[in-house]
C-alpha cells in the first residue's frame, strides 16, 4: 500500500472544499472568502484572509498524486485557468483535487478505452489517441518533466507550458482543468460552484419550461444549485464506485 499523501492548503485560499476523510465521510470545509470576491492569493503568502481562518490549513487526502506532484498540477492548472481580475480560477475551484480523483478512478486507468495491442505509432491525428499510456501514465511522466515548475515565477511557468503545448500531457491537463472548473461539485472540482458563477451556469435545473422562450437577449441567471442540492438521493459519481459492471468471464472464440 502506498504512503498516504495529503494536499495541504491554507483554508483561507480556497472557497471551500469537499473533503473525504479517512472514513470516507464527506465533510465541507469552508473558508470565509466568498467566490467572486476572492482575491488571487498564492499558497505561501496569502492575501488578506479573515483572521478566523488564517491559521487553519486543510489536509486533503490524495488518492493518486504525491504531495509534490499535486503541487505541480496545482501550479500548472493555475496558469491554464488563472485566478485573475476576470475571476477565480483553477486554484479556487479545487482543480487539482478533481484531477486527483479522476486519475484514481476508472477513467484514470482507461477502464473504458480499447487497449488491445498492437499499438501503432506515427499515424495521422485523425485516428485519435493511439498510445498505450493511460491518463495515469501520461500524468506521471508529464509531471516528471515538470519537476521544479511550482517554484518558477509565472512568466517562466508560461514559457515552460508553451514548450509542451502540443503534448498529450498538456492536452489532457488543459481538458481536465476545464472539467475541474465546471463539473458538478460532486466530483471535487468547481468548489462552491465558482466555475458556474463565472459564466452564469445554473447547474442541474429541473425545469425551464416557463423561461425557455422568454428573456430574449437578456441574461437570465438563476442561482446555481448542484446535483446534491437538487436530487433527494445521494448520487455516487463513477470515481467513487469500486465496480461498474459485472465482469464477464473470458471465453475463447
Amino acid at each position: 500500500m502506498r504512503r498516504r499523501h495529503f494536499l495541504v492548503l491554507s483554508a483561507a485560499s480556497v472557497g471551500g472544499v469537499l473533503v473525504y476523510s479517512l472514513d470516507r465521510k464527506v465533510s465541507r470545509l469552508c473558508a470565509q472568502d466568498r467566490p467572486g470576491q476572492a482575491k488571487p492569493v498564492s499558497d505561501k503568502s496569502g492575501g488578506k484572509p479573515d483572521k478566523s481562518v488564517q491559521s487553519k490549513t486543510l489536509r486533503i487526502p490524495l488518492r493518486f498524486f504525491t504531495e509534490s506532484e499535486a503541487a505541480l498540477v496545482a501550479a500548472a492548472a493555475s496558469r491554464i485557468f488563472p485566478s485573475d481580475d476576470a475571476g477565480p480560477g483553477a486554484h479556487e475551484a479545487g482543480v487539482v483535487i478533481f484531477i486527483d480523483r479522476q486519475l484514481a478512478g476508472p477513467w484514470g486507468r482507461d477502464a473504458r478505452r480499447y487497449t488491445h495491442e498492437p499499438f501503432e505509432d506515427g499515424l495521422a491525428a485523425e485516428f485519435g489517441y493511439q498510445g498505450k499510456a493511460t491518463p495515469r501514465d501520461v500524468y506521471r511522466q508529464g509531471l516528471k518533466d515538470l519537476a521544479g515548475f511550482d517554484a518558477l515565477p509565472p512568466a517562466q511557468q508560461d514559457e515552460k507550458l508553451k514548450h509542451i503545448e502540443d503534448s498529450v500531457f498538456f492536452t489532457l491537463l488543459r481538458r481536465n482543468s476545464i472539467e475541474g472548473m465546471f463539473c458538478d461539485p460532486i466530483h471535487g472540482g468547481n468548489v462552491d460552484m465558482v466555475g458556474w458563477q463565472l459564466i452564469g451556469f445554473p447547474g442541474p435545473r429541473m425545469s425551464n419550461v416557463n423561461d425557455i422562450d422568454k428573456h430574449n437577449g437578456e441574461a437570465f441567471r438563476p442561482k446555481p444549485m448542484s446535483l446534491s442540492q437538487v436530487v433527494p438521493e445521494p448520487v455516487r459519481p463513477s470515481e467513487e464506485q469500486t465496480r461498474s459492471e459485472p465482469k464477464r468471464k473470458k471465453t475463447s472464440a
Partner: protein
Amino acid sequence: MKNLPKVDAVIIGGGWSGLLMATQLGSRTQLSVVVLERGGARKLPDYLGGMDELEFNVRFRMMQDYSQETVTLRYNMRDRAVPIRQLGNFLPGTGTGGAGEHWGATCPRYVADLFELYTKTVERYGLKKLPEDHAIVDWGVTWDEIEPYYTRGDKLMGVCGKAGNIKGKLIEGGNLFEGPRSEEYPTPPMKLPYAAALFEQAAKSLGYHPYPNPAAALSVPYTNPDGISRPGCAYCGFCDRFGCMIGAKAQPTNTLLPLLEKQKSVSLRNNCAVRRIVFDKNAKRAGGVQYIDANGEECFQSADLVILGSWTLNNTRLMLLSGIGEQYDPTTGKGAVGRNLTHQVSAGTQVFVDKPLNRFMGAAPTGICVSDFDGDAFDHSNLPFIRGGTFRVAGTGFQPVVSFGVVPPTVKARWGSEWKKAAIEWYDKVAGIGFSGEHIAYKTHYFDLDPRYKDHFGDPLLRMTIDWRQNELEMVKFATAKAAELARAMGAKAVIGPPSFERYDARRYQSTHVQGGTIMGKSPETSVVNPWGQSWELPNLFILGGSTFPQNGAANPTTSVIAFTYRTADTLISRYLKSPAALA
C-alpha cells in the same frame, strides 16, 4: 454450452427496433419471444440524479464500453486499420433502449426521393452526374409505401412539429421540401430558445423556409395509440447523451418497456451478448443464437425465427462472424455483406452574437431547420456535387465542460488569462448552426472483419473502410458558405466554420447514424435483405435498423428505423407467419 428451451422468436438487441418488434409480436401474435440485450437493465427512475455533465456528456456513461469492443478504421483497402480506441465519431449505446435512450430525439423523415436515389438522379441529371466509384442504388421501397409507417412512428413517439406538405398541399411554416404526409404531426411544435428564434428570423429574411425541428420530446402531455402517456418537456437542457428523467423524451424504456412488462409471452434478458447466429446452410434456416449470459455462461437459444435488431455495426458484424452470406469484395464487386457503408456529413458553424442566449435552457430536439438545400430541392446542374442537407439551430442545453473555451478567431490563446477572459465573455453568446448532409454510398466504402484486433471474447472487430470524397468536400464548402450568410443575418460579430473535411476524423463527432452493411435491395447479388427486411439467405432471419439502409439521408434516422421496423413487423405477421417462406 447451456441449451435453453426453444422459443418461437429470438430478437437480438433491445433498442428501438428490437423492442418495437417485440411489442408488435407480443401484442399481435401468440409467439413466445425472447429479447437478448448485451447491456444492463434500465428504467425511468435510473435517470433521476443523472444531470451530471461530466459523467454523461464527457465520460459517456450510457455508451458502449470500448474496452470490450470497438471498430477499426482505415481510409482505403491498401492500409492497415487501427482501432478507434475511444468514443468519438459516433456514440453507440448499450443497455435496455440502446442509443434510443441517450439520443437527441430529432425526428425528421428522409426526403421522398432518397428511396429511389439512383433512378431520380439519373432521370434529372443523367448518368454522368453520378460521382465516380459511387454505389448509389434504389431501395426497393417507395415513399408512398413507407409513408403510413412513418405516421405510425410519429404517433408512437408523439412527434412535435408542423407539417409542410399534407397530401400534396403545401403549408407555410412547415417543411415544404419533405414528402407528402398523410396527416399533421400528433403534437404541436416545442417552445423555442432564443438562438433558434434568431435563426428563424434570419432564414426568413433571406427568403428561406424555416420550420420547427420535428421533435420526440413532447411539447404537451401526450397519450399514444398504445395507451402510453408521457408529460411535456421541462427544457432542463440535460437531453442529448442523457436519459430523460421525466420521460418527456421518447425512449424505448418509457414508450415500449411498459407494454413489454405486461406481455407475458415476451421476455427481455439483459447482459446477454450474442456471438453467433447458428444456421443450417443447406436447409436455408437459422436455428437460433449462441450468446454469453450475465454469468458468463455460454448459452444456445433455439428459435424458429431470428430477428437481428441491434445497431448498424453490430448487425453487420454478427452476420460476418456467423458466416451468413458472402463478404463483399470491392475488387470483384461480389458478395453482399458489408456493402454501402455510409456515415453523415455533419458540419457545424459557430456564430458569435453580442447578446446572451441563456443557452443552458433547452431540449436537444427543439429548434429551427432550413431544408431549402436538402436532397434535390435545388438544382445541381451547375454544382460540383449531388444532394444536400438541412441546416439546424437546435436548442440543446449547452453545458460548460464541453462548451467553455470557444473564442472568436481574433483570440489566438487557448489557455491563460487572455483566453479565459474571452471565453467567459463569449460563453453564452455563441450559437451553433448545424448542417447535416447526405452521405452517398461508394464501392470502396465497406465493412469487413479486422484481421488483427479482437473484442473481449476474442472475436474479430469490425473494420470500416471509409473516407470523405469530393462530393462531401464540395457539399460542405457550399453549405458552409450558406451557413455564413445565415450567421450574418443573425447579426454575427464573428463566425467559425467547420473543421477540415480532408480526412474522415475518428475524433470528431459526426452523428451516430452510421449505416449500411446488410442493405436492402431487389437482388440477392447486391443486397442482404429484401425490401421487407427478410434475409435472402435464410428466410427465417429478419434484419432491422440502419444497417439495412443503402444510402444515408441528411435526416436523423430513428424515425426511419421505426417506420421500417413497423413495415417488417406487419409483413412478418400478416404474410410470413401464415406461410413461412421467402417473400416475393
